[in-house]
Protein backbone atom coordinates (compact mmCIF):
# COMPACT_ATOMS: atom_id res chain seq x y z
CA UNK A 1 0.00 0.00 0.00
CA UNK A 2 1.25 3.43 -0.92
CA UNK A 3 0.36 6.82 0.49
CA UNK A 4 -1.26 8.89 -2.27
CA UNK A 5 -0.79 12.61 -2.73
CA UNK A 6 -2.12 15.26 -5.09
CA UNK A 7 0.72 17.16 -6.72
CA UNK A 8 -1.19 19.00 -9.43
CA UNK A 9 -4.63 20.53 -9.69
CA UNK A 10 -6.40 22.28 -12.53
CA UNK A 11 -9.84 23.77 -12.75
CA UNK A 12 -12.16 25.59 -15.10
CA UNK A 13 -15.48 26.57 -13.65
CA UNK A 14 -17.91 29.49 -13.36
CA UNK A 15 -15.69 31.18 -10.75
CA UNK A 16 -12.33 30.81 -12.43
CA UNK A 17 -10.29 29.25 -15.19
CA UNK A 18 -7.35 28.32 -12.94
CA UNK A 19 -6.75 27.35 -9.33
CA UNK A 20 -5.54 30.89 -8.58
CA UNK A 21 -8.61 32.55 -10.08
CA UNK A 22 -10.88 30.18 -8.23
CA UNK A 23 -9.03 30.82 -4.98
CA UNK A 24 -9.68 34.56 -5.24
CA UNK A 25 -13.38 34.00 -5.94
CA UNK A 26 -13.75 31.55 -3.04
CA UNK A 27 -12.13 33.98 -0.60
CA UNK A 28 -14.30 36.84 -1.84
CA UNK A 29 -17.51 34.82 -1.97
CA UNK A 30 -17.92 35.75 -5.63
CA UNK A 31 -20.75 34.09 -7.51
CA UNK A 32 -20.50 32.72 -11.04
CA UNK A 33 -24.25 32.37 -11.38
CA UNK A 34 -25.73 34.38 -14.25
CA UNK A 35 -28.87 35.10 -16.21
CA UNK A 36 -29.66 32.27 -18.61
CA UNK A 37 -29.66 34.79 -21.50
CA UNK A 38 -25.84 34.90 -21.32
CA UNK A 39 -25.80 31.44 -22.89
CA UNK A 40 -27.38 32.39 -26.22
CA UNK A 41 -29.01 28.99 -26.44
CA UNK A 42 -30.77 28.09 -29.65
CA UNK A 43 -33.95 27.68 -27.65
CA UNK A 44 -33.39 30.47 -25.14
CA UNK A 45 -36.95 31.72 -25.37
CA UNK A 46 -38.35 28.31 -24.50
CA UNK A 47 -36.18 27.77 -21.42
CA UNK A 48 -37.98 28.84 -18.26
CA UNK A 49 -34.97 28.43 -16.02
CA UNK A 50 -33.73 31.94 -15.27
CA UNK A 51 -30.28 31.34 -13.80
CA UNK A 52 -27.38 29.07 -14.62
CA UNK A 53 -23.69 28.80 -13.74
CA UNK A 54 -21.74 28.84 -17.01
CA UNK A 55 -18.03 28.88 -17.69
CA UNK A 56 -17.52 32.31 -19.23
CA UNK A 57 -14.76 33.77 -21.36
CA UNK A 58 -13.53 30.42 -22.65
CA UNK A 59 -12.54 30.77 -26.31
CA UNK A 60 -11.68 27.31 -27.71
CA UNK A 61 -9.50 28.80 -30.49
CA UNK A 62 -7.21 30.28 -27.83
CA UNK A 63 -6.40 26.78 -26.56
CA UNK A 64 -6.88 24.32 -29.42
CA UNK A 65 -6.24 24.26 -33.14
CA UNK A 66 -9.04 23.78 -35.66
CA UNK A 67 -8.40 20.09 -36.01
CA UNK A 68 -8.55 19.52 -32.23
CA UNK A 69 -11.75 21.54 -31.98
CA UNK A 70 -13.27 19.37 -34.69
CA UNK A 71 -12.63 16.24 -32.65
CA UNK A 72 -13.38 17.66 -29.21
CA UNK A 73 -16.58 19.19 -28.01
CA UNK A 74 -16.79 21.45 -24.97
CA UNK A 75 -16.81 18.65 -22.41
CA UNK A 76 -13.45 17.33 -23.64
CA UNK A 77 -12.02 20.82 -24.13
CA UNK A 78 -12.68 21.67 -20.47
CA UNK A 79 -11.13 18.39 -19.35
CA UNK A 80 -7.95 18.81 -21.40
CA UNK A 81 -7.70 22.49 -20.42
CA UNK A 82 -7.84 21.59 -16.70
CA UNK A 83 -5.47 18.65 -17.23
CA UNK A 84 -2.87 21.01 -18.75
CA UNK A 85 -2.91 23.12 -15.60
CA UNK A 86 -2.80 20.08 -13.29
CA UNK A 87 0.01 18.32 -15.12
CA UNK A 88 1.91 21.56 -15.62
CA UNK A 89 1.75 22.35 -11.91
CA UNK A 90 2.69 18.81 -10.93
CA UNK A 91 5.82 19.17 -13.04
CA UNK A 92 5.72 15.49 -13.87
CA UNK A 93 7.79 14.29 -16.77
CA UNK A 94 5.80 11.54 -18.42
CA UNK A 95 8.60 9.47 -19.82
CA UNK A 96 7.67 6.27 -21.59
CA UNK A 97 7.84 4.14 -18.46
CA UNK A 98 5.75 6.46 -16.28
CA UNK A 99 3.23 7.14 -19.08
CA UNK A 100 2.71 3.40 -19.34
CA UNK A 101 1.86 3.24 -15.64
CA UNK A 102 -0.38 6.30 -15.43
CA UNK A 103 -4.15 5.90 -15.32
CA UNK A 104 -6.66 8.42 -16.68
CA UNK A 105 -10.00 8.17 -14.90
CA UNK A 106 -12.47 10.96 -15.54
CA UNK A 107 -16.03 11.23 -14.31
CA UNK A 108 -18.87 12.75 -16.28
CA UNK A 109 -22.59 12.46 -15.75
CA UNK A 110 -23.54 12.90 -19.37
CA UNK A 111 -20.66 13.31 -21.81
CA UNK A 112 -21.10 15.46 -24.89
CA UNK A 113 -24.45 17.12 -24.31
CA UNK A 114 -24.10 19.82 -26.99
CA UNK A 115 -23.13 17.19 -29.55
CA UNK A 116 -26.12 15.03 -28.68
CA UNK A 117 -28.50 17.96 -28.88
CA UNK A 118 -27.05 19.15 -32.18
CA UNK A 119 -27.37 15.62 -33.58
CA UNK A 120 -30.99 15.28 -32.51
CA UNK A 121 -31.78 18.73 -33.82
CA UNK A 122 -30.44 17.81 -37.25
CA UNK A 123 -32.23 14.46 -37.36
CA UNK A 124 -35.62 15.36 -35.91
CA UNK A 125 -36.04 19.03 -36.71
CA UNK A 126 -34.02 19.63 -39.84
CA UNK A 127 -34.29 16.24 -41.51
CA UNK A 128 -30.50 16.16 -41.93
CA UNK A 129 -27.79 13.69 -40.99
CA UNK A 130 -25.82 13.98 -37.75
CA UNK A 131 -22.23 15.10 -38.22
CA UNK A 132 -19.88 12.13 -38.67
CA UNK A 133 -17.99 13.00 -35.48
CA UNK A 134 -21.15 12.90 -33.38
CA UNK A 135 -20.23 9.58 -31.78
CA UNK A 136 -16.56 10.27 -30.91
CA UNK A 137 -17.46 13.71 -29.60
CA UNK A 138 -20.42 12.70 -27.43
CA UNK A 139 -19.21 9.45 -25.90
CA UNK A 140 -18.82 9.81 -22.12
CA UNK A 141 -15.26 8.47 -22.27
CA UNK A 142 -14.20 11.23 -24.71
CA UNK A 143 -12.73 13.46 -21.95
CA UNK A 144 -10.65 10.57 -20.57
CA UNK A 145 -9.54 9.55 -24.07
CA UNK A 146 -8.62 13.09 -25.05
CA UNK A 147 -6.48 13.55 -21.90
CA UNK A 148 -4.84 10.20 -22.52
CA UNK A 149 -4.03 11.18 -26.13
CA UNK A 150 -2.96 14.74 -25.29
CA UNK A 151 -0.31 13.53 -22.84
CA UNK A 152 0.45 10.07 -24.23
CA UNK A 153 -0.75 8.31 -21.08
CA UNK A 154 -1.14 4.60 -21.64
CA UNK A 155 -2.25 3.11 -18.33
CA UNK A 156 -5.83 2.01 -17.56
CA UNK A 157 -8.10 4.79 -18.79
CA UNK A 158 -11.86 5.08 -18.65
CA UNK A 159 -14.86 7.12 -17.63
CA UNK A 160 -16.96 6.76 -14.53
CA UNK A 161 -20.56 7.87 -14.72
CA UNK A 162 -22.59 8.08 -11.55
CA UNK A 163 -24.47 11.36 -11.98
CA UNK A 164 -23.42 13.93 -9.36
CA UNK A 165 -20.93 11.53 -7.75
CA UNK A 166 -19.05 10.79 -11.00
CA UNK A 167 -16.00 12.93 -10.27
CA UNK A 168 -15.71 11.85 -6.65
CA UNK A 169 -16.04 8.20 -7.64
CA UNK A 170 -13.42 8.72 -10.35
CA UNK A 171 -10.92 10.34 -7.98
CA UNK A 172 -11.70 7.70 -5.35
CA UNK A 173 -11.09 4.94 -7.85
CA UNK A 174 -7.85 6.52 -9.08
CA UNK A 175 -6.74 6.90 -5.46
CA UNK A 176 -7.35 3.20 -4.82
CA UNK A 177 -5.41 2.23 -7.93
CA UNK A 178 -2.38 4.31 -6.98
CA UNK A 179 -2.58 3.20 -3.35
CA UNK A 180 -2.72 -0.47 -4.24
CA UNK A 181 0.15 -0.21 -6.70
CA UNK A 182 -1.90 -1.09 -9.80
CA UNK A 183 -0.59 2.13 -11.33
CA UNK A 184 2.21 4.52 -10.43
CA UNK A 185 0.25 7.72 -11.01
CA UNK A 186 -3.15 8.88 -12.17
CA UNK A 187 -4.72 11.85 -13.89
CA UNK A 188 -8.26 12.03 -12.63
CA UNK A 189 -11.22 14.27 -11.95
CA UNK A 190 -14.52 15.11 -13.54
CA UNK A 191 -16.19 17.32 -16.07
CA UNK A 192 -19.59 18.42 -17.29
CA UNK A 193 -20.73 20.74 -20.06
CA UNK A 194 -24.47 20.34 -20.18
CA UNK A 195 -25.85 23.85 -20.32
CA UNK A 196 -27.93 23.21 -23.40
CA UNK A 197 -31.62 23.81 -23.99
CA UNK A 198 -32.60 20.14 -23.86
CA UNK A 199 -30.71 19.41 -20.65
CA UNK A 200 -31.97 22.56 -18.97
CA UNK A 201 -35.55 21.77 -19.83
CA UNK A 202 -35.14 18.18 -18.63
CA UNK A 203 -33.86 19.49 -15.29
CA UNK A 204 -36.72 22.00 -15.15
CA UNK A 205 -39.13 19.12 -15.45
CA UNK A 206 -37.76 17.64 -12.23
CA UNK A 207 -38.88 20.75 -10.33
CA UNK A 208 -35.69 21.07 -8.32
CA UNK A 209 -34.22 24.22 -9.84
CA UNK A 210 -33.86 27.50 -8.00
CA UNK A 211 -35.43 30.58 -9.56
CA UNK A 212 -33.55 33.22 -7.55
CA UNK A 213 -30.20 32.00 -6.18
CA UNK A 214 -28.45 28.92 -4.86
CA UNK A 215 -28.58 29.19 -1.04
CA UNK A 216 -27.61 25.83 0.46
CA UNK A 217 -28.55 25.08 4.10
CA UNK A 218 -30.44 28.40 4.33
CA UNK A 219 -34.07 28.87 5.14
CA UNK A 220 -35.83 29.98 1.96
CA UNK A 221 -33.67 27.91 -0.38
CA UNK A 222 -35.44 27.00 -3.58
CA UNK A 223 -33.20 24.47 -5.24
CA UNK A 224 -30.09 23.95 -7.30
CA UNK A 225 -28.50 25.88 -10.16
CA UNK A 226 -27.06 23.88 -13.03
CA UNK A 227 -23.42 24.59 -13.90
CA UNK A 228 -20.49 23.62 -16.10
CA UNK A 229 -16.84 22.95 -15.56
CA UNK A 230 -13.99 20.56 -14.87
CA UNK A 231 -11.45 19.74 -12.21
CA UNK A 232 -8.47 17.50 -12.97
CA UNK A 233 -5.79 16.27 -10.56
CA UNK A 234 -2.48 14.47 -10.65
CA UNK A 235 -2.21 11.69 -8.09
CA UNK A 236 1.05 9.95 -7.31
CA UNK A 237 2.75 7.93 -4.62
CA UNK A 238 3.95 9.98 -1.68
CA UNK A 239 7.41 8.48 -1.94
CA UNK A 240 7.70 9.41 -5.63
CA UNK A 241 6.53 12.97 -4.99
CA UNK A 242 8.87 13.37 -2.03
CA UNK A 243 11.82 11.90 -3.93
CA UNK A 244 11.46 14.37 -6.79
CA UNK A 245 10.81 17.27 -4.42
CA UNK A 246 7.34 17.92 -5.81
CA UNK A 247 5.05 20.46 -4.19
CA UNK A 248 2.44 18.33 -2.43
CA UNK A 249 -1.01 19.93 -2.26
CA UNK A 250 -2.52 17.34 0.09
CA UNK A 251 -2.84 13.64 0.71
CA UNK A 252 -5.88 11.65 -0.31
CA UNK A 253 -6.18 9.46 2.73
CA UNK A 254 -9.51 7.73 2.31
CA UNK A 255 -12.38 6.97 -0.02
CA UNK A 256 -15.87 6.00 1.10
CA UNK A 257 -18.68 4.87 -1.16
CA UNK A 258 -22.17 3.50 -0.62
CA UNK A 259 -25.56 3.10 -2.27
CA UNK A 260 -28.91 3.96 -0.73
CA UNK A 261 -30.66 1.14 -2.58
CA UNK A 262 -33.81 3.12 -1.95
CA UNK A 263 -35.34 5.94 -3.91
CA UNK A 264 -34.00 7.01 -7.29
CA UNK A 265 -33.91 10.70 -6.42
CA UNK A 266 -34.71 11.17 -2.71
CA UNK A 267 -31.52 11.10 -0.61
CA UNK A 268 -31.24 9.05 2.57
CA UNK A 269 -29.31 9.76 5.76
CA UNK A 270 -28.15 6.19 6.19
CA UNK A 271 -26.48 5.94 2.78
CA UNK A 272 -24.74 9.30 3.16
CA UNK A 273 -23.58 8.48 6.70
CA UNK A 274 -22.24 5.16 5.57
CA UNK A 275 -20.10 6.75 2.85
CA UNK A 276 -18.79 9.42 5.27
CA UNK A 277 -17.94 6.79 7.90
CA UNK A 278 -16.21 4.59 5.34
CA UNK A 279 -14.07 7.49 4.07
CA UNK A 280 -13.00 8.43 7.59
CA UNK A 281 -12.23 4.82 8.52
CA UNK A 282 -10.42 4.18 5.22
CA UNK A 283 -8.21 7.18 6.00
CA UNK A 284 -7.37 5.81 9.43
CA UNK A 285 -8.95 8.91 10.95
CA UNK A 286 -11.61 9.42 13.60
CA UNK A 287 -14.69 11.62 13.21
CA UNK A 288 -13.19 14.07 15.71
CA UNK A 289 -10.20 14.62 13.39
CA UNK A 290 -12.35 16.18 10.66
CA UNK A 291 -12.10 19.93 10.76
CA UNK A 292 -13.79 20.94 7.51
CA UNK A 293 -16.27 19.51 5.02
CA UNK A 294 -16.94 20.62 1.46
CA UNK A 295 -20.58 19.61 1.32
CA UNK A 296 -22.57 18.25 -1.57
CA UNK A 297 -24.86 21.16 -0.57
CA UNK A 298 -26.98 21.56 -3.67
CA UNK A 299 -29.52 24.00 -2.27
CA UNK A 300 -32.46 21.63 -2.56
CA UNK A 301 -34.66 21.15 0.49
CA UNK A 302 -34.12 17.40 0.50
CA UNK A 303 -30.36 17.20 -0.04
CA UNK A 304 -29.36 19.82 2.48
CA UNK A 305 -31.45 18.60 5.40
CA UNK A 306 -30.46 14.98 4.70
CA UNK A 307 -26.78 15.89 4.41
CA UNK A 308 -26.89 17.94 7.61
CA UNK A 309 -28.45 14.99 9.41
CA UNK A 310 -25.77 12.65 8.04
CA UNK A 311 -22.99 15.01 9.19
CA UNK A 312 -24.48 15.13 12.70
CA UNK A 313 -24.99 11.39 12.63
CA UNK A 314 -21.28 10.75 12.01
CA UNK A 315 -19.64 13.70 13.78
CA UNK A 316 -22.08 13.88 16.70
CA UNK A 317 -22.46 17.21 18.47
CA UNK A 318 -19.17 18.38 16.93
CA UNK A 319 -21.01 18.30 13.61
CA UNK A 320 -22.78 21.51 14.65
CA UNK A 321 -19.47 23.37 14.87
CA UNK A 322 -17.27 21.99 12.10
CA UNK A 323 -17.27 24.48 9.20
CA UNK A 324 -19.18 23.02 6.25
CA UNK A 325 -18.88 24.94 2.96
CA UNK A 326 -21.37 24.57 0.14
CA UNK A 327 -19.36 26.11 -2.68
CA UNK A 328 -22.11 25.26 -5.18
CA UNK A 329 -23.65 28.51 -3.95
CA UNK A 330 -20.92 30.16 -6.06
CA UNK A 331 -20.05 27.74 -8.88
CA UNK A 332 -23.39 25.98 -9.28
CA UNK A 333 -23.92 22.28 -9.71
CA UNK A 334 -21.80 20.80 -12.48
CA UNK A 335 -23.23 17.30 -12.00
CA UNK A 336 -20.49 14.83 -13.00
CA UNK A 337 -17.88 17.56 -12.66
CA UNK A 338 -19.14 18.88 -9.32
CA UNK A 339 -17.05 16.65 -7.07
CA UNK A 340 -13.89 17.69 -8.93
CA UNK A 341 -14.64 21.40 -8.80
CA UNK A 342 -15.33 21.01 -5.08
CA UNK A 343 -12.12 19.05 -4.59
CA UNK A 344 -10.32 21.97 -6.26
CA UNK A 345 -12.08 24.31 -3.81
CA UNK A 346 -11.03 22.12 -0.90
CA UNK A 347 -7.41 22.01 -2.06
CA UNK A 348 -7.43 25.81 -2.28
CA UNK A 349 -8.92 26.03 1.21
CA UNK A 350 -6.43 23.61 2.77
CA UNK A 351 -3.47 25.34 1.20
CA UNK A 352 -4.74 28.84 1.92
CA UNK A 353 -5.85 28.15 5.50
CA UNK A 354 -9.43 29.31 5.10
CA UNK A 355 -12.89 27.90 4.62
CA UNK A 356 -14.94 29.27 1.71
CA UNK A 357 -18.35 30.75 2.41
CA UNK A 358 -21.78 29.41 1.57
CA UNK A 359 -23.14 32.54 -0.06
CA UNK A 360 -26.72 33.77 -0.44
CA UNK A 361 -27.40 32.59 3.11
CA UNK A 362 -30.46 34.31 4.56
CA UNK A 363 -31.25 32.67 7.89
CA UNK A 364 -30.62 29.35 9.62
CA UNK A 365 -32.88 26.43 8.82
CA UNK A 366 -33.72 24.45 11.98
CA UNK A 367 -33.51 21.33 9.79
CA UNK A 368 -29.85 22.10 9.00
CA UNK A 369 -28.22 22.75 12.39
CA UNK A 370 -24.67 22.99 11.06
CA UNK A 371 -22.18 25.83 10.58
CA UNK A 372 -22.23 26.39 6.84
CA UNK A 373 -19.87 29.39 6.97
CA UNK A 374 -22.61 31.81 5.96
CA UNK A 375 -21.69 34.46 3.40
CA UNK A 376 -18.08 35.17 4.39
CA UNK A 377 -14.89 33.15 4.17
CA UNK A 378 -13.11 32.48 7.43
CA UNK A 379 -9.51 31.79 8.41
CA UNK A 380 -9.15 28.17 9.40
CA UNK A 381 -6.32 25.68 9.52
CA UNK A 382 -7.47 22.43 7.96
CA UNK A 383 -5.59 19.25 8.82
CA UNK A 384 -8.22 16.75 7.74
CA UNK A 385 -11.28 17.32 5.60
CA UNK A 386 -14.02 15.59 3.66
CA UNK A 387 -15.51 16.23 0.22
CA UNK A 388 -19.04 14.88 -0.15
CA UNK A 389 -20.88 13.91 -3.32
CA UNK A 390 -24.32 12.33 -3.28
CA UNK A 391 -25.87 11.40 -6.60
CA UNK A 392 -29.26 10.72 -8.05
CA UNK A 393 -29.64 7.00 -8.07
CA UNK A 394 -28.61 6.94 -4.41
CA UNK A 395 -24.89 6.66 -5.18
CA UNK A 396 -22.65 8.25 -2.58
CA UNK A 397 -18.95 9.15 -2.64
CA UNK A 398 -16.80 10.82 -0.02
CA UNK A 399 -13.08 11.61 -0.11
CA UNK A 400 -11.00 12.16 3.03
CA UNK A 401 -8.05 14.53 2.60
CA UNK A 402 -5.18 15.19 4.94
CA UNK A 403 -2.53 17.87 5.14
CA UNK A 404 0.97 16.50 4.50
Amino acid at each position, binding site marked *: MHRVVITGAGVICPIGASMVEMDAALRAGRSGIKDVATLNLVDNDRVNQKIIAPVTGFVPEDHFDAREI*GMMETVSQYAVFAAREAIGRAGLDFNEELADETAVIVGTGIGGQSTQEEGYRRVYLENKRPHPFTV*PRMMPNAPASQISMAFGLKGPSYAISSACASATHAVGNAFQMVRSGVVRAAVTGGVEACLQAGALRAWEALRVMASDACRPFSLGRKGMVLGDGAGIFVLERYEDAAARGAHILCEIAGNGMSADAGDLTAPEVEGMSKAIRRAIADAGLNPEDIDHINAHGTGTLANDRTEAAAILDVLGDRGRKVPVSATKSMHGHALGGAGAIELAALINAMNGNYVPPTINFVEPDPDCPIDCVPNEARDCRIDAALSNSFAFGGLNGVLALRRV
Partner: protein
Amino acid sequence: MSVESDVIEIIRGKSSEGLEIIDRGTQLSELGIESLDMVELIFELEDKFGIEIPYNANSSEMEFQTVGDVVDAIAKLVAEQG
Protein backbone atom coordinates in the same frame (compact mmCIF):
# COMPACT_ATOMS: atom_id res chain seq x y z
CA MET B 1 -13.57 22.09 -63.88
CA SER B 2 -15.75 23.47 -61.07
CA VAL B 3 -16.12 20.03 -59.50
CA GLU B 4 -12.35 19.70 -59.37
CA SER B 5 -11.76 23.10 -57.81
CA ASP B 6 -14.61 22.67 -55.32
CA VAL B 7 -13.34 19.24 -54.28
CA ILE B 8 -9.81 20.56 -53.87
CA GLU B 9 -11.02 23.42 -51.68
CA ILE B 10 -12.96 21.02 -49.43
CA ILE B 11 -9.95 18.70 -49.23
CA ARG B 12 -7.72 21.67 -48.39
CA GLY B 13 -10.04 22.48 -45.46
CA LYS B 14 -9.47 19.01 -44.03
CA SER B 15 -5.71 19.02 -44.50
CA SER B 16 -3.47 19.46 -41.49
CA GLU B 17 -0.37 20.04 -43.63
CA GLY B 18 -0.96 23.43 -45.28
CA LEU B 19 0.44 22.51 -48.72
CA GLU B 20 0.32 25.47 -51.10
CA ILE B 21 -0.31 23.49 -54.23
CA ILE B 22 -2.86 20.73 -54.18
CA ASP B 23 -3.64 19.09 -57.49
CA ARG B 24 -4.95 15.83 -58.90
CA GLY B 25 -1.67 14.10 -58.25
CA THR B 26 -1.42 15.02 -54.56
CA GLN B 27 -1.52 11.98 -52.27
CA LEU B 28 -4.14 12.26 -49.50
CA SER B 29 -1.50 10.93 -47.10
CA GLU B 30 0.70 13.95 -47.91
CA LEU B 31 -2.16 16.14 -46.73
CA GLY B 32 -2.32 14.44 -43.34
CA ILE B 33 -5.83 13.16 -44.05
CA GLU B 34 -6.50 10.24 -41.73
CA SER B 35 -9.45 7.90 -41.33
CA LEU B 36 -11.78 10.21 -39.39
CA ASP B 37 -10.86 13.13 -41.68
CA MET B 38 -11.87 10.96 -44.61
CA VAL B 39 -15.27 10.33 -43.05
CA GLU B 40 -15.81 14.04 -42.52
CA LEU B 41 -14.54 14.82 -46.03
CA ILE B 42 -17.06 12.41 -47.57
CA PHE B 43 -19.81 13.99 -45.46
CA GLU B 44 -18.97 17.48 -46.69
CA LEU B 45 -18.66 16.40 -50.31
CA GLU B 46 -22.08 14.76 -50.13
CA ASP B 47 -23.60 17.94 -48.72
CA LYS B 48 -21.83 20.15 -51.24
CA PHE B 49 -22.85 18.21 -54.34
CA GLY B 50 -26.14 16.75 -53.09
CA ILE B 51 -24.95 13.23 -53.79
CA GLU B 52 -24.57 9.99 -51.89
CA ILE B 53 -21.06 8.53 -51.93
CA PRO B 54 -21.11 4.77 -51.35
CA TYR B 55 -18.05 4.94 -49.12
CA ASN B 56 -17.57 2.49 -46.29
CA ALA B 57 -14.46 2.60 -44.15
CA ASN B 58 -14.55 -1.22 -43.95
CA SER B 59 -14.62 -1.81 -47.66
CA SER B 60 -11.90 -1.43 -50.24
CA GLU B 61 -14.41 -0.91 -53.05
CA MET B 62 -13.91 2.80 -52.98
CA GLU B 63 -10.36 3.61 -51.98
CA PHE B 64 -8.91 7.03 -52.50
CA GLN B 65 -5.16 7.47 -52.77
CA THR B 66 -4.92 10.80 -54.54
CA VAL B 67 -6.93 13.98 -54.85
CA GLY B 68 -7.63 12.94 -58.47
CA ASP B 69 -9.27 9.71 -57.26
CA VAL B 70 -11.71 11.77 -55.21
CA VAL B 71 -12.36 14.27 -58.01
CA ASP B 72 -13.09 11.49 -60.52
CA ALA B 73 -15.46 9.68 -58.16
CA ILE B 74 -17.37 12.85 -57.39
CA ALA B 75 -17.53 13.91 -61.05
CA LYS B 76 -18.91 10.47 -61.95
CA LEU B 77 -21.57 10.59 -59.23
CA VAL B 78 -22.57 14.14 -60.16
CA ALA B 79 -22.88 13.12 -63.84
CA GLU B 80 -24.95 10.03 -62.95
CA GLN B 81 -27.28 12.20 -60.98
CA GLY B 82 -27.82 14.30 -64.09
